[in-house]
């Protein structure tokens, strides 16, 4: 694995100005490069990052950059993540109804949180896009509704509350490049319409039914069929 996460520690000092945002945008989440021996232990990850291959942050996957941000508080790495995600977060927030300035400001807030919480990001538990989506969603709710969205902590001490048949399965390796391709392509038009109203208009399934003048059962079955697609996509690759 050491060949994947190798770097030169002196690259930490790379200046932000050296980051070419075009190169950053050329990055793709589909780029595969995760190590499977990520085990949440910082020290251990440090050990595997002592290779002598010289590479700059522009050659790293977003997940590797997050490790650098978490471990080394590396601003050059952060700048690459910023260049890639901030414009997408801004666009997402505008679709949720914020104006350009509001979305700009909130996207900045979201990226500050990405920096602050970088060490909580675990590529085995979430895709980076999903992790950032959650931060953006919670920030949006926090600011527009003055509500701290209750978070599900899948990895906390409440494991002892799980029903016996559901206790610790091995962590599923889902951060496979193949499934980073969008599940959206697999949804039909009707499902997509429901998903858009749900994620962009903050409508609950019963509000969606009302909005589209559809029976509640129809909306429920569209959502459940969408889940079948999503779970199949996850299942195929696990």
């Amino acid at each position, binding site marked *: 694995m050491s060949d994947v996460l190798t770097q030169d520690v002196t690259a930490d000092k790379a200046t932000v100005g050296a980051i070419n945002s075009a190169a950053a945008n050329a990055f793709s989440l589909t780029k595969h490069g995760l190590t499977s021996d990520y085990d949440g232990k910082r020290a251990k990850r440090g050990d595997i990052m002592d290779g002598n291959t010289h590479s700059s942050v522009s050659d790293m996957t977003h997940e590797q950059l997050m490790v650098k941000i978490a471990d080394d508080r590396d601003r050059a790495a952060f700048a690459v993540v910023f260049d890639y995600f901030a414009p997408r977060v801004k666009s997402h927030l505008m679709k949720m109804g914020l104006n350009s300035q509001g979305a700009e400001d909130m996207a900045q807030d979201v990226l500050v949180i990405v920096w602050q919480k970088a060490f909580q990001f675990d590529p085995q538990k979430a895709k980076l896009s999903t992790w950032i989506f959650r931060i953006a969603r919670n920030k949006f709710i926090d600011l527009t509704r003055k509500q701290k969205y209750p978070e599900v902590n899948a990895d906390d001490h409440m494991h002892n*509350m799980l029903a016996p048949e559901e206790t610790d399965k091995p962590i599923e390796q889902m951060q496979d490049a193949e499934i980073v391709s969008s599940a959206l392509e697999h949804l039909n038009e009707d499902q997509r319409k429901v998903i858009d109203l749900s994620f962009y208009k903050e409508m609950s399934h019963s509000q969606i039914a009302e909005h589209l003048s559809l029976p509640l059962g129809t909306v429920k079955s569209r959502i459940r069929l969408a889940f079948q697609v999503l779970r199949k996509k996850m299942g195929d690759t696990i």
Partner: protein
Amino acid sequence: MTHTGLLPQEWLMDYAAGSLNEAHAMVVACHLQYHKNLQDDLRAAEDLGGDLLMSNQPEKMAADSLDKVLSRLDAGEAEPIEVQRSTPSEMPTDVPAPLQKYLKNGLSDCKWRIMGPGMRQMKLWSGEKGECLWLLKAKGGTQIPVHDHKGLEMTLILKGSYHVGDEHYTPGLLEMADQDHHSHQPVIDEGEDCICLVATEAPIKIHSLVGRMLQPLIGL
């Protein structure tokens, strides 16, 4: 309506999308703490959110945007937010983690108010449209007064158990009852107290005269 005691998927999608109010979101988040399979479903739904984020045409950031953010990192916002991890012995294990927002030390923080014979309640949150999040504590053997629902009533069992007709609800299971459930009358199982987290959308209608008289006092 669910008869499995597990959250239907459309509710998971609502939670993932961020469209639930505080009361519903809290019940859902707490319910999910008990069920790994539902957590996996939620992850699938949130991945969809991530996919939407990635599918957007990127919107140009202001020219000074990155500089502004970097200067905020300089200005003391740079420090990582330490997760407030207490040692396991300090953790209340009698409530799901999200509920610590209201009950930092678990059920020992509860301030119960009398609600009726054998019943206590503690209000946690109320919304502008009559939505309410509250805890119910009922003694073993108690019959909850027969009531109808104007909106949806979501009940997550935290401790003890009850049954409604043939359906049996134990810790971690969720009961969802709406206006189609007339004359809803849960009966608490004999034995230990039953404690539930409840989200109601509109005041419940209690059938008995005494119940209706008490209702304004209870405030639910």
